[in-house]
């Protein structure tokens, strides 16, 4: 046997790995569509445009700027909810409590405003309380290793129950500042207008895009969804991040509750039942993988818009019951989840 040590080093003859051959434009387009990062989002974007075009072709008056803007006006609270939910789902978790937290937020807002509190106190108070609830949920998940499904289910029942502790009946909101805020329209010229809620929702979206895309916290959120174990071994602040995403979701739920009470000008214990599932649907249709790790906030916004435009079409149709929205959403969800499975399966 000869020594393996005195053989000439073979490294000189080794070429660096060849770069991939340039792809044809079609191949490149296919790559973009089949990437788990961008594929589902693009499909959603195309879907939105397609549905919007179908609506425009079928119904008179559908193709107006205000119809488009109303998608934001009517769904601003859902956009905020979907943003919070995106953080959670990106880590591979789920938050079932958001609908109930919206309800309890409307109840707190309505009852405190009714007893004469100032909105300047009530709104921050709601945001602090719901963030705190999110913190408790996050700690439960992190410290006691409770499944997110179970922990947030508990929070959901807790929040829903608290609604009835506050009042069994609907409370309307008459507080002047609040009402003024609710009826204000911000003109955009050309007869178009939006509400302050839309502005708030869009600000939330912009902040979320920045946080998720360009901060260490945001990238750690993605890391958690990619592989929690790897994240720990890479020395990332995994534990902290895991707790904070539920605080973010709690905060967003509270804010969504405030926007919802602006939208309805009332608090009602049975409101927003099942909204958590709308938010999850929007996030999934928006291209975020339920397993975590892949997805964008803007995708979730698109998801909300898709839900909104389906609802609008059904309203324009006039003859269909509003439950058809659910049926369409159900079908869409199915398609998107299968799409995700196909895309992730290709990678393994």
């Amino acid at each position, binding site marked *: 046997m000869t020594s393996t040590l005195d053989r000439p080093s073979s490294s000189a003859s080794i070429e660096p790995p060849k770069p991939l051959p340039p792809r044809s434009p079609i191949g490149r387009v296919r790559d973009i569509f089949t990437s788990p990062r961008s594929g589902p989002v693009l499909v959603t974007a195309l879907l939105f445009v397609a549905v919007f075009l179908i609506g425009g072709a079928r119904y008179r008056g559908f193709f107006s700027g205000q119809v488009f803007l109303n998608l934001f006006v009517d769904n601003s609270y859902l956009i905020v909810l979907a943003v919070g939910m995106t953080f959670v789902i990106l880590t591979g978790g789920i938050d079932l409590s958001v609908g109930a937290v919206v309800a309890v937020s409307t109840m707190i807002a309505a009852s405190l405003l009714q007893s004469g509190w100032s909105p300047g106190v009530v709104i921050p108070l709601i945001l602090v309380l719901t963030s705190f609830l999110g913190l408790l949920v996050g700690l439960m998940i992190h410290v006691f290793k409770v499944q997110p499904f179970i922990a947030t289910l508990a929070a959901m029942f807790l929040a829903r129950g608290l609604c009835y502790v506050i009042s069994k009946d609907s409370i309307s909101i008459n507080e002047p500042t609040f009402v003024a805020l609710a009826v204000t329209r911000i003109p955009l010229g050309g007869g178009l207008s939006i509400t302050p809620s839309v502005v708030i929702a869009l600000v939330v979206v912009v902040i979320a895009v920045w946080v998720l895309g360009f901060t*260490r916290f945001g990238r750690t959120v993605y890391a958690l969804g990619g592989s929690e174990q790897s994240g720990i071994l890479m020395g990332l602040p995994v534990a902290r991040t895991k707790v904070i995403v539920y605080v973010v979701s709690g905060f967003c739920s509270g804010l969504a509750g405030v926007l919802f009470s602006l939208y309805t000008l009332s608090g009602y214990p049975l409101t927003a039942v099942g909204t958590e599932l709308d938010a999850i649907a929007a996030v999934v249709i928006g291209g975020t993988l339920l397993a975590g790790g892949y997805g964008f906030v803007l995708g979730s916004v698109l998801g909300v818009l898709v839900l909104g435009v389906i609802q609008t079409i059904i309203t324009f149709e006039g003859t269909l019951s509003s439950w058809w929205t659910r049926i369409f959403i159900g079908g869409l969800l199915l398609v998107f989840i299968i799409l995700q499975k196909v895309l992730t399966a290709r990678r393994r």
Partner: protein
Amino acid sequence: MTDTREVREHFPADGATPVVEMTGISILFPGVKALDDVSFRLFPGEVHSLMGENGAGKSTLIKALTGVYPIDSGTIVVDGQPVSFTGPAAAQAAGISTVYQEVNLLPNLSVAENILLGREPRRFGGIDGRAMRRRAAELLEGLNLDIDPGSLLGSHSLAIQQLVAIARAINVDSKVLILDEPTSSLDADEVAELFRVIRSLRDSGVAILFVSHFLDQIYEITNRLTVLRNGRLVGEYLTTELLRIDLVQKMIGKELTTLDEIGERAHADAVTADRPADYARAEGLGRKGAIEPFDLVIGEGEVIGLAGLLGSGRTELARILGGIDRADSGQLDIAGARTRLRSPRQAISRRIAYSSENRRSEGIIDDLTVRENIVLALQADRGWFRPIPKKRREELAQSYIQTLNIRPANPDALVRNLSGGNQQKVLLARWLAIAPRLLILDEPTRGIDIGAKAEIQKLVYTLAENGMSVVFISAELEEVLRLSHRVVVLRDRRLVADLENDGLTVDALLALIADGSVDDEAPLAPLGESS
């Protein structure tokens, strides 16, 4: 025999201070002493390998050094400072970086993020994406790696991901770089690329701890070796001064207790008996990345011993025969009929049983009773809609408990409460219950007491006498020799010898395991992979 000059140049001069010095390290796991008073040192500018078989404590020692496991006793000194790491982040801060066996990076993030996340350049309170990609590109260039730092990590091959992991590790000013099985999924060119990087890092004064199962690679790249066995330190050696055969012997150790009960009968039979009828015949059977194509004939009533180090492909071969992993090349004939095994279920229906080396995770089910564990495979084979009658289950359990002498002799005992040896017997009973024609036993005697070991050996012998074919894997060569009619030797994922057990000695086997080839003229397979 070996030219030592080149190594000498890199070896620390006398009086050099180690960058890492671990002394008297012990780590206790529930019921097991994973490390027992182990010492280990690492000098700057050397490549040092930790060697040992399954359960030797290599990973545990690495995890102690990287702060993943707390140590129960002993001291760790890094750069002259006693340290006590609270986690991987703390070890990293002290200059100890690790690249783990499975690439522990994030496939869903970009290459640049995978390299720099946690230490990313910042601007305006956020991550400065452009600066991050620039920095990543520099590091990749240093490794001669031409990939787009903005691309998704998951879109690259495992080899590139491995190099990205190293880029991450060297970005911090690492004094110590730990590479845990970095070559297990790389081909020869990729290994050469990796070694080029390792050499240049070593020359820049980094201490490198390199763990690999490939002996060729160990002898090509390392300066020193530390050998562990069963959680204990065997010794520290200069690579050039330790012959391969001695290394293998130190890793495997000698089984001191002899088990005379079976005596020499096994191989006496093998020599006198005519060649038995073939039961299974594999031609060119192989699986990419697991084991090179091999030919193997298993006769009826024959015991084939598989010898080789951990990672030599012995388990991989067995898993293909047992239908656990699918072969991607070659053919398998079972009892004369061409067969493609796609799942363990199919293997079972052809009366082939594979008993895994991972008794706890792939074998027994802790929370079921002895009886339930025994009838499991038989029930699965019958289909769940045809339950085995209660009476039959009782009989089966009773008879196996008696035949195999399972203690406690209580069919209703939970398997989790049994000793390792008795758990192994329950597992054996499960496979015997399906009346296999070919029984594949992967390390059935590991970690069990000597009495149970003898019983299992005797059982294997009896089964073979009754016409059952057995493939027997064990790290203990004496045991393999004692039981087998034929011994198949594996090395670096290749079947290197198939021998009648006729006057074979442990030393001869050791030589085969160490060098793989008795033929001096055969070129050494570069880096343990054929290209």
